[in-house]
């Protein structure tokens, strides 16, 4: 063992990703951004006119906003070494609640309170009752989806006017979806990289027991991650409800799994403690550009399933884990 290590004042780029704590946690994000750059270049070369058109880009922003919201929320749970399969159902539930026959100032808070309650239950089950996150959130997902269908059996209902205004059209010449994306991303990045909670979340995800021994309220941190995820899902539900101007009890069903895809493609590891919202931005954009690119290139939508699956499998295979299984 060397007694006094030599500390070079500056490290090379590669060494920095290996040695420097911040960069180590963001190495997946770096890879995602590299991929994203390649994709943009590819689209720019193959379909330059259509891809960079204002219509296409603003459509992209409007379409991707909900996925941004849930993926960012999912990122918190994954960082804390959890897993939230219930976000799709929460989106649907908030859409159902927001189109209930009630006054806006009543139902909007109810929608978010319900989401927070789901997050609390998820966290309580996973953290305090030690049920495996996949099983726990599978269970709540089923329950929440049931309630969504109970409240709103078929698509319909009237969305709150304020949401319709906030989720459609443009503001200052830019599509409103973009503002949702920027606001959510900024908030997530601030929470993870600018607050005490963020560091504690990384610590908890790495090793809950060790984090607890250092005096962190690790259980509370993990529960909070689930609550944040649920609240972000409710926001996505609000955006979708506003954009469609009506409710849909199944609107979130596809988004639940895509939220994991966005976070994982962005370099957040399922084992916790590595990754973050910056990478998730790239991950979601990769999904969006892939779908967009395949559409623009007139590829059969059936191929999108295949490509998405291949992307997913590639992403999880990039960082080899120690153990096989879940």
């Amino acid at each position, binding site marked *: 063992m060397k007694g006094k*290590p030599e500390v070079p004042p500056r490290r090379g780029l590669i060494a920095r990703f290996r*040695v420097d704590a911040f960069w180590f946690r963001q190495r997946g994000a770096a890879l995602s951004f590299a991929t994203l750059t390649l994709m943009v270049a590819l689209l720019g070369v193959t379909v330059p006119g259509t891809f960079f058109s204002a219509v296409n880009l603003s459509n992209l922003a409007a379409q991707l906003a909900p996925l941004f919201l849930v993926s960012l929320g999912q990122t918190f749970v994954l960082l804390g070494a959890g897993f939230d399969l219930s976000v799709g159902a929460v989106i649907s539930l908030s859409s159902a609640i927001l189109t209930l026959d009630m006054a806006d100032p009543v139902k909007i808070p109810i929608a978010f309170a319900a989401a927070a309650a789901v997050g609390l239950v998820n966290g309580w089950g996973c953290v305090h009752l030690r049920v495996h996150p996949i099983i726990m959130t599978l269970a709540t997902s089923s329950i929440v989806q049931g309630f969504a269908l109970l409240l709103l059996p078929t698509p319909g209902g009237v969305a709150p006017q304020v949401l319709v205004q906030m989720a459609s059209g443009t503001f200052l010449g830019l599509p409103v979806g973009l503002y949702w994306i920027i606001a959510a991303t900024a908030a997530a990045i601030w929470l993870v990289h600018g607050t005490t909670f963020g560091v*504690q979340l990384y610590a908890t995800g790495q090793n809950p027991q060790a984090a*607890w021994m250092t005096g962190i309220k690790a259980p509370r941190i993990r529960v909070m991650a689930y609550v944040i995820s649920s609240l972000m899902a409710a926001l996505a539900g609000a955006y979708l409800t506003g954009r469609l101007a009506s409710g849909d009890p199944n609107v979130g069903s596809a988004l639940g799994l895509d939220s994991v895809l966005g976070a994982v493609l962005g370099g957040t590891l399922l084992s916790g403690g590595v990754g973050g919202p910056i990478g998730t931005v790239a991950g979601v954009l990769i999904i969006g550009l892939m779908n967009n690119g395949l559409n623009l290139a007139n590829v059969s939508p059936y191929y999108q399933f295949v490509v998405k699956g291949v992307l997913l499998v590639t992403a999880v295979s990039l960082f080899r884990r120690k153990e096989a299984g879940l």
Partner: protein
Amino acid sequence: MNGAAPAQRQGAPLLEVRGLSKSFGAVCALQDMQLAGHEGRIHAVMGENGAGKSTLMKLLSGVHRPDTGTIRLRGRDVAFDQPRDAQKAGISTVFQEFSLLANLSVAENLFLGRERDRTHRLSRAEIRRHTARALAALDLQIDPDIRVGALSVGEQQMVEIAKGVLADASVFIFDEPTAALASHEVEILFALIRRLASQGKVIFYISHRLSEVFTLCDDITILKDGRFVTCVDTATTTVDAVIQGMVGRPIEELFEPRTGLFGPVLLRADVLAGDASPHPVSLELREGEIVGIAGLEGQGQQALMRLLAGFQPALAGSLTLGADRIEAASARARMAKGIGFVPESRKDDGLFLSLDISANMASAELARRPLLSWVPHMGAQIDAVMHQLGVKAPDAWTRVIDLSGGNQQKVVLGRWLHAGASVLLCEEPTRGVDVGAKREIYRQLRSFAAQGRSILVTSRELPELIGLCDRLLVIRSGRIVAEMAAEIATEDALLRAALPSFESDAA
């Protein structure tokens, strides 16, 4: 204490423990414990492994809650539900098992949970500045931004210590802090501990290294089998008296007599090297022989064992079991040929906790069978092994999670007895096991060897190695640097060989 306290210990102690007891399941880890820490004094807590030192410290640091008894801090009773409470009360602990987070930087680790000053949240720049100062105080040249997972074990230990020091507490607990340190780092640490004491802090120093305790500490509290034995002033006691208090029984009673009858070489490694153990190692195990590997923490013992067991591929050299060359064989193939492996961490790597004794014991024997082979009924054999080892359980269908540490360890040993292993690679055979079970395990290991098989053992406990083994190898930085017969080996001689500072004839 019978009023025999020396003059320097007058006055009310800052921290006082009375009647403290703690049980884990059926195992009583600590019983009616007492302890008193005075300001400005360095107080050693000594005892054998499993004597209850770590449990006591975990109670003081809020990791466990006591079953009975009181902890008084500055004359007031305190109760800690979680480590955070103890830290807030001003008790800072440097844990033996690292509580550092590998994915965080040194600075983030040092300030985890105390990112807030009394008045405001510390900025990143402030945290870095404080970190740099704390590291400088320990004479450490470590970049505050570096990921802890990228540091060496010794560096991690120093960061752990820096974290404790930074906490600005009134009570400091050091749990075996020198286990992974080089000698000059030990000097720095001692200077630091003395400085803390001179500032009026209470220091508890847990160690079983007598030399350290006698150079550093003012008081010594001795524990044995989870009970308080005595508290003495270092100045008025002797090494022999302390050992007498810790052991309390002649060593011969604990260990089986050696047979001294060895057969031919059973396992031979010849300049064997692997990825994690790049230095070629040569060693021989004879039939009937128990060989121990001694060394400081993290000197490559684990890598060597796993290289021999086949969990690390051999890159060079040869390994022979009986007449077979096995260095190219997988771990599974080696096990089928008769190598058994008892991993250090019983719960993480050894046991199937929610399965029953039968499934746990049968696993290694079953592992030799093809995937789709019929499993015969093995109840009688399992019962026989359980009986032979004296596993205390109602029947073979008892889940191992319900067993004590000693019985769990017997189940792991029984696995290899049942599988008919001829060579046992055994890491820390008695870790977390009470004294009664220790003796039983020593007896079993000796009788295993007496049947013409051989055992290679690693242990942190030098007395254990000396008492249990026939021959000892000392490992330092992945190299075997000394070899001696256990009969003539002493702790002192082993430590001399194991410590880099004693090295005079460097190759």
